[in-house]
C-alpha cells in the first residue's frame, strides 16, 4: 500500500528491500530435490502460457488454503482439458498438497505447509498480474532472463539508474530483449528507459500493488529456475 503514495524514489527503494527479503521467502523452492524442482519448473512454464490453467490453479490453491471447496473451483477444474487437469493435480502434489483422487477435491490435505504456501504465493502473484504479463514472464524464462531482471531490481541504485556495462545486465543491451523487458515492466507500472549505457526506472505515480507483485513473481521464478 505504501508504494502508491510514496515518492518515486521511495517506491523503488521499498521495492528493492522487498526483493531482498523475497529471496529468503522463496527458499523452499531452492531446497527442493533437483528432480522435484525441475518438475515444478516445467509445469510452471506451461502455466505461464496457459491463462485458463493459471486461473484454475489459483482458484484451487485458494480453496485448499482456506479448507473450503467452492463451486468456482469445481467449475474451473471442469473447464480444463483432461491433460490440464492431470498437470494441475501433479503440480499440487509436487508442492505439498496431498491429492487423494484423480483430481483435486475437498478431501485433499496440505502435507507441506511451507512449500505449498510458497507455491501459492507465486501462483497468486502470477494470477493477479494484468493480461499478457504471465506470457511475457514465460518468454523471459525461455530467454533465461529472469536472473537478469531480479538483478536489475537489486541493482537499481537510489538515483533509479543501473549501469548496462555491468556484466549481469548484459542481456539488456540487446534491443529486442530490452523491448520485452520494457513491456513487462510497463504492465507492472514501472517505466524503464534505456539511455546510452544505462537503464532508468520510474514507478508510475498512481501505481498501487503491481510493482510488488512483479517482484514476487520474478523472485519466485528465479528461486525455482536457478538450476535451469
Amino acid at each position, binding site marked *: 500500500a505504501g508504494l502508491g503514495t510514496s515518492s518515486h524514489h521511495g517506491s523503488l527503494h521499498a521495492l528493492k528491500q522487498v526483493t531482498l527479503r523475497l529471496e529468503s521467502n522463496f527458499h523452499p523452492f531452492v531446497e527442493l530435490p533437483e528432480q522435484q524442482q525441475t518438475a515444478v519448473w516445467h509445469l510452471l512454464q506451461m502455466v505461464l502460457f496457459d491463462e485458463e490453467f493459471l486461473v484454475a490453479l489459483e482458484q484451487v490453491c485458494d480453496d485448499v488454503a482456506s479448507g473450503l471447496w467452492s463451486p468456482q473451483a469445481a467449475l474451473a477444474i471442469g473447464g480444463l482439458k483432461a491433460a490440464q487437469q492431470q498437470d494441475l493435480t501433479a503440480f499440487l502434489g509436487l508442492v505439498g498438497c496431498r491429492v487423494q483422487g484423480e483430481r483435486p477435491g475437498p478431501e485433499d490435505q496440505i502435507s507441506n505447509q511451507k512449500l505449498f504456501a510458497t507455491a501459492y504465493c507465486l501462483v497468486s502473484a502470477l494470477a493477479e498480474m494484468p493480461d499478457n504479463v504471465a506470457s511475457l514472464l514465460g518468454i523471459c524464462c525461455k*530467454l533465461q532472463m529472469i536472473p537478469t531482471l531480479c538483478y536489475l531490481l537489486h541493482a537499481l541504485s537510489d538515483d533509479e539508474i543501473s549501469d548496462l556495462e555491468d556484466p549481469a545486465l548484459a542481456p539488456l543491451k540487446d534491443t529486442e530483449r530490452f523491448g520485452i523487458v520494457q513491456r513487462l515492466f510497463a504492465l507492472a507500472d514501472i517505466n524503464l528507459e534505456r539511455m546510452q549505457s544505462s537503464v532508468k526506472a520510474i514507478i508510475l505515480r498512481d501505481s498501487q500493488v503491481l510493482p510488488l507483485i512483479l517482484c514476487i513473481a520474478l523472485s519466485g521464478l528465479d528461486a525455482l529456475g536457478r538450476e535451469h
Partner: protein
Amino acid sequence: MFAKATRNFLKEVDDDGNLISVSNLNDSDKLQLLSLVTKKRRYWCWQRPKYQFLSVTLGDVLTEDQSLSPASAAVGLDILSSAYPAAWMRGGNLSFITRRKLNLKDPVLQQVLERRNEVLCVLTQKIVTTQKCVISEHVQIEEKCGGMVGIQTKTVQVSAMEDGNVIKDCNVALEIPAATTIAYGIMELYVRQDGQFEFCLLQGKHGGFEHERRVDDIYLDPLAYRDFAFVDMPD
C-alpha cells in the same frame, strides 16, 4: 475473453476503481439492484477480493416482510447505461432502514455466516449494454527475439454492432446481447449479532459481521508463512 473485455472497459471509465467488472456472461442475469453479494477477502494482501452473487435481495432477508424498491435513473453513454439507486442510498434520509433487521436464520445468510472472511454487500449500481456488442480477440505474433522465441500477445477489442458488421481479422468473436450487465457497484453492510445492520457509506468504513467467528480456522496456517508479511516495508 468476456472478463478481459469488461475489465479493460472499467480501466477506461472507472478511474476511482469503485466498480467491479463482471467476469462471467452467465452472471449477468443475477445482478439485480438490491440483490445481495458476498465479498470474500483473500489470503494474500495483493489478491483482489472475490464476489459471489446470492439469489436473494436485501428485501428477501429482512425480518419484516416489507419489500424495498430502489429509485432508478438511466444515464446514456452511447452503448451503455447505468442505473443508480442514488436516492435510495445517498439521499440523506436513511430512516427507512432503522429498526429493520436481517433474518440471520435465513438459510442463505446462515451459509454466509458459516463461511469465513466474507462480507455481505448489496448491489447499488450496474452498467448495462443497451445494444448488441461484439468482443473480438486477436492473437498476434508481434516480433521475434534472437530467432528463438516469438512473442504471442492477445488483444481484446469491443465494438458496438450498429451496422451489423463484425471485425473479420480476428481469431475469436463473442457476441454480448443487449441489456447485459458488464459492471456493478456494491455497498458493504455491517451486520450486528441481533441482525441490525448499517450501510458502510464512507470510504474506509468496512463491513462484516459483529463478533466475526474465529479467524484461526483458516486451513493454511498463517504462521507457516509469516515471513511474507510486509508489515515493516518502508513507506
